[in-house]
């Protein structure tokens, strides 16, 4: 039992020939917007399927809202709303009929919310689901999920097919009606811009493993590129250096904290520090996932374990 919205410990999911999830340990606090980021095939959807009881983990443990995944799945499903990546519902039914069908399953269901969001998202409530555009199908999913007024909202690639105006409205709804109410949003996505806008926390996964989990603002206030002139540099063993990359006549160190001190140390060794610059989520994502071409000397850009910043 714990107080996290989502907690996993060394979660593993093996499908024939692939370790889709490979020792994943997540800590998603309650009441936050958490961006679960990774490339296609990084293991995001596999993780979500385990959490919702749609797949059984090969190894490891997990809880959602304090309930044990697997053993207490019904309690989890009652309190969790889910928008899946593949938008398949009963095609013959209209959104209005889908609402009637869905509401009985959820103790917190709000008809007021149905009215509000169907207007806000301009959903054609009386046209069969199968005849809706992709964008409208996504909106129906969001409507059904939001109206559950669940403690945890899990969104797997929610932005599919939505135009920018609807995305913007949806972000407002998430802030006002979900996070503002102390409920938790878990967004799995590779749409970095939308996630960066709204997320408090991010978890970055690749090849089924967690590369980074921290508060987004802490990442931004501490992560720095330290750019140094020259190509052959003394190897550094600093634990704060996540990776080293070369770019033309410069070497770049991705430093997770105390970048100024690190830069001063390099200067002390005779290096010319050209720049210490902050970086956005997109750059961090690209750097960590791509593991840029390492320098000839210096420690190679291997990431030993997930980075986690202390709570402040």
């Amino acid at each position, binding site marked *: 039992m714990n107080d996290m919205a989502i907690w996993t410990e060394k979660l593993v999911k093996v499908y024939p020939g692939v370790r889709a999830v490979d020792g994943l340990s997540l800590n998603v606090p309650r009441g936050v917007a958490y961006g679960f980021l990774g490339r296609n095939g990084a293991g995001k959807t596999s993780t979500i399927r385990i959490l919702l009881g749609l797949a059984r983990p090969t190894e490891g443990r997990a809880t959602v809202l304090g309930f044990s995944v697997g053993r207490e799945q019904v309690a989890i499903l009652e309190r969790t709303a889910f928008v899946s990546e593949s938008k398949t519902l009963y095609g013959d039914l209209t959104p209005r009929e889908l609402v009637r069908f869905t509401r009985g399953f959820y103790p917190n269901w709000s008809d007021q919310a149905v009215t509000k969001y169907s207007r806000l998202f301009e959903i054609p409530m009386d046209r069969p689901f199968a005849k809706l555009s992709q964008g409208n199908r996504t909106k129906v999913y969001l409507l059904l999920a939001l109206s559950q007024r669940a403690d945890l909202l899990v969104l797997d690639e929610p932005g599919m097919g939505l135009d920018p105006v609807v995305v913007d409205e949806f972000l407002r709804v998430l802030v006002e009606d979900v996070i503002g109410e102390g409920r938790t949003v878990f967004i799995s996505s590779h749409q970095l811009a939308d996630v*960066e806008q709204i997320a408090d926390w991010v978890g970055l996964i690749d090849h089924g493993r967690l590369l980074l989990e921290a508060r987004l603002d802490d990442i931004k206030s501490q992560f720095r590129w330290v750019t140094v002139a020259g190509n052959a540099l003394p190897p550094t063993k600093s634990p704060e250096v996540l990776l080293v990359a070369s770019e033309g006549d410069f070497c770049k160190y991705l430093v997770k904290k105390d970048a100024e001190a690190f830069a001063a140390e390099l200067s002390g060794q005779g290096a010319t520090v050209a720049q210490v610059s902050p970086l956005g989520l997109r750059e961090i994502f690209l750097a960590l996932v791509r593991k840029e071409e390492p320098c000839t000397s210096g420690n190679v850009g291997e990431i030993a374990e997930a980075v986690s910043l202390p709570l402040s």
Partner: protein
Amino acid sequence: MLLHVNPASGVPTYLQIETQVKHYIAAGALVPGDALPSVRKLAADLRISTNTVARAYQNLERDGVLRTVPGGRTYVAENPGSFLKSERIRRLRPYATQIAVEGTQLRLEPREIMELVQQELDALEEVNERYGDLDRKAR
């Protein structure tokens, strides 16, 4: 109050909010007693997490810039300068250090660094006077 945040920049969003609020106060656009939007309203307007806005407000409150009354409304504090001078200097020192370090690293002369700070102070003064004029005209 017009706040803009750029989530894609490398600057933490809560810091962007803090800096802007302080700037509005320094420039006289916000005066003691002015109400700020609620955490939820500002977060919804900016499409950022309520936690981020709450963090900014808490920091500003801790710094004596804002105050929250029972019931939850937040105002510009009556006298942001009411802390002891030594305390105010203590709070400013890290920025002074940063200016000194960065300026030196960029190979600027001490005189040039001082001039830069002076220019910023002058700019604030000018904005402040303009707001003062507007206020007098309004009356």
